[in-house]
Every structure is written in C-alpha cells, then in structure tokens.
C-alpha cells in the first residue's frame, strides 16, 4: 500500500512538472482494495481494471520502473509508451489492462474468464470497476452473461461514491448499496466490505475466490471507499465538501493499518520505517529509470498495429 501511495505521489509531482501528461487518475485512498484483493490471486488468474489502474498494477507486482516509464511515455514503459497511465498491461502477469472507456472492460473480463472455463482451468478473472460504470449497459449485460454461463469471474466494485463529479445518488435510482443487485442476475455469492480495511478486503476476496474456484460461477464484492483527490489531475473538486473527504481521510489505510500492526505487536516502528525507506528508494529509482529512458523511436508509431 505504501508503494502505491508513494508511487502515485510521485506521479502527481511528475505531472505538475510536465513529465507525465494526458489524463492522470490517482488511486490515493483506495489502496487497501487492490492490495487486499490481488494478494489472494494465483499467477494464472487474470486482472482487468479501469483507468485508475496504477494501484492494481503495482499490487500485481508489475515493475514500478516500467510503469513509471510508461507514464513518462518512454520506450522502456510497459507498453513502450503507447498506452500511458490509463492503459497499463503486463501479459506475463495476467494483467490485461487498464481500460479507459467506462464499462468497456466488463466484456473483456467475461472472455478471459470464459477461456479458463473452456480450458477447464481453475483460473479466475477479477474485474475492477467503479460505481460510475454500473450505469453502463455492459455492466448489466456481462453480469447476466457471467451468471448464465457460470463464468469464473469476480466482479469487484470499488464504490468511491463519485463518478467523476457526480455523486452516486444523483445518477442512480437504486440506493446506496450496489451488491444486492447482483442477485437479480443470479449471482448469489455477494459481499460488501469496508474498502479502507485491507484485511477485510482480503478475507472477503478469499471467500469469493473459493466459491468461484469450486465451480459456483461468478461472485460480486462491493468495497466502500473514497478517492482522496480529484477524479484526475484536472479536477478542482468543486462538487463535494472538504469535510466529506476529511471523514474518509481519518480512515486512511496508510494510517490505520500500520497502527494496527504496531498495536498487535507484529511490527516495530523501526521495522516499518525500514520498509518505508526501502519503498521511498524504489520510487525514486522508478522516477530515475523513467527519466533516463528515451522516447520511443519514430518507427514505433507504425508497429504493434497487427500481429
């Protein structure tokens, strides 16, 4: 979690310096979800996510150097600088994007899950999505498809309450809880979890994956969370009150989790500090790696269009 937080703080800083351009959506505040959920996956599982994807990528173990180089648009980026922040991929790690059309990732996830079923593998596809995407048709279509085909897919809703500047209750008729809706499609394995509690996320994910791997078809988890910053770097956050953010910031997993570890005597402050120092150095190295990597050569414009 600390790696994701520090990586993204660095992303924000590099954005203000003009090193990272385009759209940059930070995951700050939501780290407990990616870390808790992805820690439970197996190497042959697939992950598909949305454009706020740095947290999932790092939690899956994607190389921070290559991720930062991608944000810098450099040749050593995960996608040689052709995807950018919103489109991180690492095929070897089953990390099938970063997708920037809201809700566009659901059908892709269904197909990846279908491949596991077709090959009679116990693999699963986890699809992360925000509350905003639940008003897209693909959300409903794919929940139905997954249920009717019993696909090994975990629908993981990161409900941060806002789709860009619109709070869920301004754009949704169905109330504040999303997870009960899954049952109407025939997805019975559902859970709601505190997205600020990494251990709770981990436990809920473990149960969901056990159900899926034992052949029960799809599962659905809703994690309640909050992004501490704007939708993207371009967002001045005029649509919500600072006091709402403060309530959630008080529950920042980067504060509460280390405190819990200390309280339970699992780590000493010195040990935590050592971890932090290591991560700080790793992030600094990632920035350096990105800065040192050249821009892609001109011919890269024309490659990777066809296999």
């Amino acid at each position, binding site marked *: 979690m600390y790696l994701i937080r520090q990586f993204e703080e660095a992303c924000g800083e590099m954005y203000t310096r003009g090193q990272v351009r385009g759209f940059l959506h930070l995951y700050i505040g939501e780290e407990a979800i990616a870390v808790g959920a992805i820690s439970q996956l197996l190497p042959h599982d697939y992950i598909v996510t949305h454009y706020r994807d740095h947290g999932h990528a790092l939690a899956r173990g994607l190389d921070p150097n290559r991720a930062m180089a991608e944000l810098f648009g450099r040749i050593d980026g995960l996608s040689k600088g052709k995807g950018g922040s919103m489109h991180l*991929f690492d095929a070897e790690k089953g990390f099938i994007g970063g997708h920037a059309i809201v809700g566009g990732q*659901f059908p892709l996830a269904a*197909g990846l899950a279908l491949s596991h079923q077709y090959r009679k593998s116990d693999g699963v596809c986890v699809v992360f999505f925000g509350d905003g995407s639940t008003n897209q*048709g693909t959300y409903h279509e794919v929940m139905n498809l997954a249920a009717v085909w019993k696909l090994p897919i975990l629908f993981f809703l990161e409900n941060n309450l806002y789709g860009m500047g619109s709070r869920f209750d301004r754009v949704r008729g169905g109330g504040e809880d999303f997870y009960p809706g899954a049952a109407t499609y025939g997805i019975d394995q559902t859970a709601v979890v505190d997205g600020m509690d990494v251990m709770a996320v981990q436990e809920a994910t473990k149960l969901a994956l056990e159900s899926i791997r034992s052949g029960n078809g799809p599962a659905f988890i809703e994690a309640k969370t909050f992004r501490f910053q704007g939708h993207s770097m371009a967002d001045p956050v005029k649509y919500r009150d600072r006091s709402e953010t403060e309530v959630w910031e008080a529950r920042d997993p980067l504060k509460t989790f280390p405190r819990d570890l200390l309280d339970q005597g699992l780590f000493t402050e010195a040990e935590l500090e050592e971890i932090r120092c290591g991560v700080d150095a790793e992030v600094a190295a990632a920035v350096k790696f990105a800065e040192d990597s050249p821009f892609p050569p001109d011919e890269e414009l024309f*490659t990777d269009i*066809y*296999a």
Partner: protein
Amino acid sequence: MTEITFRQALQRGLREALDADPNVFLMGEDIGKYDGAYAVTQGLLEKYGPDRVRDTPISEAAFVGAGVGAAVAGLRPVVELMSMSFSLVASDQIVNMAAKIRYMSGGQLKVPMVLRAPTGGGVQLAATHSQSFENWYASVPGLKVVTPSTPYDALGLLRSSIEDDNPVVFAENALLYATKGDVPDEEYRVPIGVADVKRTGTDITLVGWAHGIVTLMAAAEKLAETGVSAEVVDLRSLRPLDMETVTESVEKTGRALVLDENWRTAGFGAEVAAEIGYRSSDYLDGPVARVSGTDTPSPYSRPLEQLGIPQVPWVIDEIEKTYGI
C-alpha cells in the same frame, strides 16, 4: 471441384476450422439450437457440442467483447452477429477493444478473433437492418475487413481469417448466401489482402467487392455485347486494401469505375476512387467513374428500395457518361 452455395461454403469453412483446432469455437445469437438466423451454423451444435457452439443472450457488446477476451487468452473465437447493423451496439468493443488492445499493450497481446455478420440490403428489411458498416470498420487501424463475393472466396477467406492473429470483420452479403460456385474438394486458403481479377478485359477496369461483383460481372457481360472489354477486379478485402492489383489493371485499361453499393458520401468507394486517381491519373482517359447506393436510408417498400441499389444499367450509363464508350 464441387458446386456449393455461399452458405454451404461458410459452413464447410467453420467445420474445417473446428476440426483443425480445438481452440476454435463459435458464439452468437441463436447459432446453436435455432441453427442460425441464416442457417450458416445449421447442425454444428449437434456435432461440436455447447462448449464450442455457444448460444448467447441478445447482448452484442457482451459477447463480442467476450470474444476479444477469449482471443486475448489464446482461443480463436468466431463470433456471429445476426446483422452487421447490430454491430453498432458492440462497436465500442470492436473499435476500442479489439482494434486497440494490441497497440496499447505495446504488442504484448493479440486478438485472433473473427466477427462474422450478414450485411447489405435488398431484402426489404428496412433502414436499420440493411446497412454495411464494414465500410466504417475499414477505416480502423488494427482491424481487417474481409468481403467475399463467391463461395470459393468465402471458404478460403474464412479459413484464413480464423487462422489470422488479428481481429477480422468478415462481412457476408446476405444476397450472396444462396449463390453457387465451384470449390475444390480439398482444403485450401485464400490469402487476406489480395484482390482477384474475376474477369479479364482491356478497355475498362470495374472495381468492386462482395455483392457488387455480381452486378459488375453482369455489367461486363452487357458491355461485351457492345464490344467493350471490361476487366472486373474484386477487392475481396477492404483492409488490407490491395491497390497494387487495382493499379495494374487500371494502368492497362486506362479507364476505371468503382462500384460501392452503400452510401456514396465518405463511402469506401470514395477511398478507392481517390487512390486510383492519385496513383494512376497519367494513365486515365478521364475521371474515375463512381457508382454507389443512394445517400438515403433503405426503405421497406420494394420498388423504393430497389431505386437506391446500384443496378447494371447504372454502371453502363456511368461508363458512357464518363468515357463515352
């Protein structure tokens, strides 16, 4: 050689592909138990079972995108849409997912998927079911667009499309399903991106694709009666576009007509005509002649509908108007 219909050719291509590669599977609306809206998949569920011949819900975005996901994972899905018109519902998955995922992943992923769909008008299905969006998809880098006109090409191109590592939009003009032609008894492939001279001639090059070739072949017969020798070039695929074969023919005959059965404005025929003009203006006796469908929605009423679809006399008249032959 055996004479079979376009529909039978497609079915044979699907069977051969299913037999050849366990990663090949079919999915689409009512392709199984119902036997397919146009009966191309008739009997396949019985033979190959529900894992390989999957009926889907009426959820084009979901199952087209699922095809992309399955292809990314290394399978070779052949997805059937009941109509090319319905592809608009899934167009985000086609344009933003299938066509982009390789590029945006820096070449890490590939999408070996075929999207088959009946297309075109002429059978009184009215405005929303008579469209040919393969013309639109032809402008999207990352896609291939295949448009066969004969049973031979349909079978050979389908095998190549299923074996291709890229997303292929395979447009089946519905007027062609019952047409007949000879195909070899042994397995064969037709390469994607190679146009075919369907008739040789010396006086004018007639360029088209899919059902347009039926019209152009009939027009060439008619022209022969008045002593005009027409060469008919079948593009067979819109992307990649084989301009070399077109150019060679045009520079031999010195005259060119492009037939696009669909909307004229910003249609694919405009692209072909512009390329011919750009490449071969020094060889041409006049401007590139164009015949296209009318810039109208397709009406239901048969006489009105036929008014909008290019006919043989349109081709003859346009040639006379442009080149005086």
